[in-house]
């Protein structure tokens, strides 16, 4: 699985409780769609830290990094690449 697929299947399974890939688009705002909230974002971060071995700093918890599947993918890739 690619990074993006892993992230998407985590979101689908844990927040939308489905494996239907059309349930959310990669560019859709997770906040707008009501998919994540303040405790949900912490679950996403735990997942990223465990799955990709990255460390997420508090000041990185911003929508540009975490508000859509594509944003999360870009964020993870920048962390892994660094």
């Amino acid at each position, binding site marked *: 699985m690619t990074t993006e697929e892993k992230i998407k299947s985590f979101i689908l*399974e844990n*927040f*939308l*409780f*489905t494996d239907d890939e059309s349930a959310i688009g990669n560019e859709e*705002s997770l*906040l*707008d*769609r*009501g998919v*994540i*909230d*303040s*405790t*949900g*974002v*912490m679950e996403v971060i735990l997942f990223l830290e465990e799955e990709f071995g990255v460390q997420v*700093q*508090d*000041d*990185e*918890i*911003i*929508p540009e990094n*975490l*508000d859509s599947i594509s944003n999360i993918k870009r964020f993870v890739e920048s962390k892994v690449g660094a």
Partner: protein
Amino acid sequence: MQAYTRKLMNRPQWLLREGMLASASRYPDKIALVIEGQPYRYGELQDAAMRLAGRLREEGVRPGDRVAIYMDNTWPCIVSIYAVLLAGGVFFVVNPQTKMEKLRYVLEDSGARALLTDWHLAGNFIPAVEGLDALRFLVVSGEPRESVETGNRLVLAFATVLAESDPLSEPVNVVPTDLAALIYTSGSTGDPKGVMQTHQSMVFAAWSLIEYLRLSASDRILLVLPLAFDYGLYQLLMAMKLGATLIVERSFTFPARIYERMRQEEVTVFPAVPTIFSMLVSGHRKQALTFPSVRRVTNTAAALPEALLADLKEIFPNALIYKMYGLTECKRVSYLEPELIDEKPDSVGKAIPGTEVFLLKENGELAGPGEEGILHVRGPHVMLGYWRKPELSEKMLKPGRLPGERVLCTHDLFRMDEEGFLYFVSRTDDIIKTRGEKVSPVEVENTIMQMEAVKEVAVIGVADETLGSALHAFVVPESETGSLDKRVRKHCAERLENFMVPQKVHVVTQLPRSANGKIDKKRIIEEEWWHDEI
């Protein structure tokens, strides 16, 4: 100053909208709101609200009509609240996390004449409004940019309405004893109930809070709580009445963004709930945080854990910390003077200014110092009742000492010490507090019971450091159990707000019962029933 504002200045009792109108005439160019970084002046707010109000009136909104506002914490949401008030209507804000079925329920229950909402919620509101005859039109922000007619219902574009509508010539006349808002809240019976609040009670409550929080026009108040929650709504009402500035964010989902905004905007008032304080403190323990501009920190919705206090004093070195207690049915009951926070660590203080509380024992007598009793509340902040639910209203509002007087019975058990300080003992209903929100286990159970695969269910609160209580559902399957836990969570996530979706679903063979045959929730906890999972 507008003639209609000049007239109200000498009046002893204001309507809820008049705090904003007075501030707009006193400080038309002052920044009233900073919404996700975008500033709006008092003059702009008044102008936008008068235009939308003009259109609401034109489309048939009349005094006393209910208007639903289903939006995030945004500029259109705040304009809508004041527009409904200016048109003489009764507003209610629906949490944008609300799903289709519950949205439909509150629209139907309230008999709302109009729905003001945002296009990104279309997936929920389009099916929800189908066949609701009382609902005459929608105003939608975001897309579509042009007003359209669908079915035989008008859908107006928010931006077009603001650009093209004529403002009201003056606010539509209502009186202080008219309804200003309904505030929907979960009840132990399952269905949400609309708490009826009059202009008089809301203006009074806002004044009382401003008084004890010692707020002024120079304050910069942070709003991260939803406007559908009375605690969030009153931050707006207080700020607008004071002529202060409200710093509005959609939620606390991205804390780093909020911290940055708090520093930029030099926030002076930080209202939050224990889950937010707990996230703040865990961040602080990793990397020190400090907000020296903050002068007031307020907590309500659930008790502030003692373990967080020392860290909060470091994070907010210049702030007074307020512990408070309340329920939507009277907005707020009590607060502890912040200077006493170390001296009375377990107390939620005394009645808010202008109100009175007393404890009644089971036999109806007043409880003495140290004795337990049910907390009762007197004052102008007490609700008029629940919208169209007279039996439930009777359960909460009891006859007072004076003819016609109604006293609020909170059904919460308290103790009072010799000096009159209040101590919470327990709830007498089975409402669960999670993330500062009230959850009715019956409502979650009813939702889960809609599933054919489920034979029985019990929802309980399990102590949790961050959430206060975590929701656990114990499910007995009808027959096959294949991934039932996941299906239960999905079913809930599609129908309930996020905070009502059980964190954990235990699939078990049976549930313990008491002598009268009811499911015994106490035993589920005491006997650690989760070990019985299939």
